[in-house]
């Protein structure tokens, strides 16, 4: 056998060491291996907020509800940390913003705080001001120094509660300088009835969002006065009209009347009706779940809020359905719409044109 030279011997030793290390790495338990450094993204999920917070257009509806659903699942159900990334958000519309606002408050109420949630603030100045003005940035532990100054931001007013106390709502409506008294009273009628529905029907069962929160109640309201119209939106996160309505007619003599109404309205004898169709039928049948004639006028009150108001609009979103009522040229038009995703609750939006010249 030939004797190894010094160089060969050293090379052989190096090769042996390399083989030894490889072998040890193969047999070493996974949890003893050196782990990579933790970055911020590994301790919190980043949840990208949509560009537009709006619910009527289908594409916006889908994206907003996907975002809200993920937020609810990760924070409320899984108790994970989340960073909400508003950097791409460009528009905050009343309906979508109210739903998000309500869901945040619900999560905060249930968990006792929103310490699990932080945010990357928006790049858009107006969106920043809206989020600051509504208190959302503070809720998400962001102490932005931004001061809301835009007129179309600071005129957003909010109210919320768990019982039918319309004091704050009435004060907000009466403060709207461009809103004539008769229209203010009609809006008050609609909102106070929506509030009464919350007390009596909206939370009759568990909300079907997987959170299984027992005994909850709550309503939230936005009011926003702009140059030529006023928007008032009211939200509850209950079971929705499509759930409470079947309970109204189940097992009593009005069930056949209800079926007749549905067939008359939608021209077919379906086994299952969409949420939009059920909302429309709820308005038509003029009843509440107790089946007494003196009950159940609340939904009609909501239409009365815009009656005789040229250009007035009422939108009722409940679960996957949407009912739209417009008053143009004194003729009302009604339409229904259905979405793939549910808002798990009810959101009502009144929009009334107001005069630029009205001084109240």
């Amino acid at each position: 056998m030939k004797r190894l030279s010094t160089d060969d011997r050293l090379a052989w030793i190096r090769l042996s060491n390399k083989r030894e290390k490889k072998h040890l790495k193969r047999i070493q338990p996974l949890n003893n291996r050196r782990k990579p450094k933790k970055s911020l993204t590994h301790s919190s999920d980043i949840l990208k907020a949509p560009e537009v917070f709006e619910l009527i257009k289908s594409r916006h509806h889908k994206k907003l509800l996907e975002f809200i659903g993920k937020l609810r699942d990760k924070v409320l159900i899984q108790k994970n940390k989340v960073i909400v990334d508003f950097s791409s958000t460009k528009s905050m519309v009343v309906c979508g913003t109210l739903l998000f606002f309500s869901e945040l408050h619900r999560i905060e109420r249930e968990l006792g705080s929103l310490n699990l949630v932080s945010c990357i603030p928006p790049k858009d100045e107006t969106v920043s001001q809206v989020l600051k003005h509504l208190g959302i940035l503070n809720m998400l532990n962001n102490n932005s120094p931004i001061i809301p100054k835009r007129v179309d931001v600071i005129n957003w007013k909010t109210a919320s509660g768990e019982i039918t106390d319309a004091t704050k709502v009435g004060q907000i409506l009466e403060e709207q300088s461009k809103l004539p008294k008769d229209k203010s009273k009609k809006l008050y009628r609609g909102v106070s009835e929506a509030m009464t529905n919350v007390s009596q029907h909206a939370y009759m069962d568990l909300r079907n969002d997987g959170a299984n929160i027992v005994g909850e109640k709550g309503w939230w309201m936005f009011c926003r006065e702009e140059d030529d119209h006023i928007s008032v939106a009211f939200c509850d996160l209950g079971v929705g009209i499509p759930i409470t309505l079947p309970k109204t007619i189940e097992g009593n003599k009005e069930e056949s009347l209800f079926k007749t109404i549905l067939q008359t309205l939608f021209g077919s004898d379906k086994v299952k009706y969409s949420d939009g169709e059920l909302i429309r039928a709820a308005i038509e049948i003029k009843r509440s779940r107790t089946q007494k004639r003196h009950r159940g006028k609340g939904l009609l009150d909501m239409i009365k809020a815009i009656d005789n108001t040229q250009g007035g609009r009422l939108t009722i979103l409940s679960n996957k359905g949407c009912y739209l009522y417009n008053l143009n040229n004194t003729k009302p038009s009604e339409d229904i719409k259905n979405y793939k995703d549910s808002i798990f609750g009810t959101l009502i939006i009144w929009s009334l044109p107001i005069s630029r010249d009205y001084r109240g």
Partner: protein
Amino acid sequence: MNASTINVTTTNIDIGKDFSHYPAGRYETDGPFNGELFRAEFLVPVLNSHQQITIELDNTAGYGSSFLEEAFGGLVRLGYSSAQIKTAITFHSEDPSLIEEIEEYILDAEQD
């Protein structure tokens, strides 16, 4: 405020000033200024004492149907007839449709 703190021999009840500027809700379990409470505190004592009163409707932020129906239609469910109610109560409002609405609730309750 309740009926015992106002002079029940007066002929007027101003809902907005004597009860609440922000009436809302049907039952006492709904909220603080509901129709059931207004009926119990203000209307029932009037009917029981055979007084005649005028109710001022205008000085509130508005009314929901639940409040009005429970307050006034609810009198019929308690056993008062529409004739008794009409004799005892006169309504005042600049909005005649509001008075018509209340009268309709009273008549409908009698037919139920």
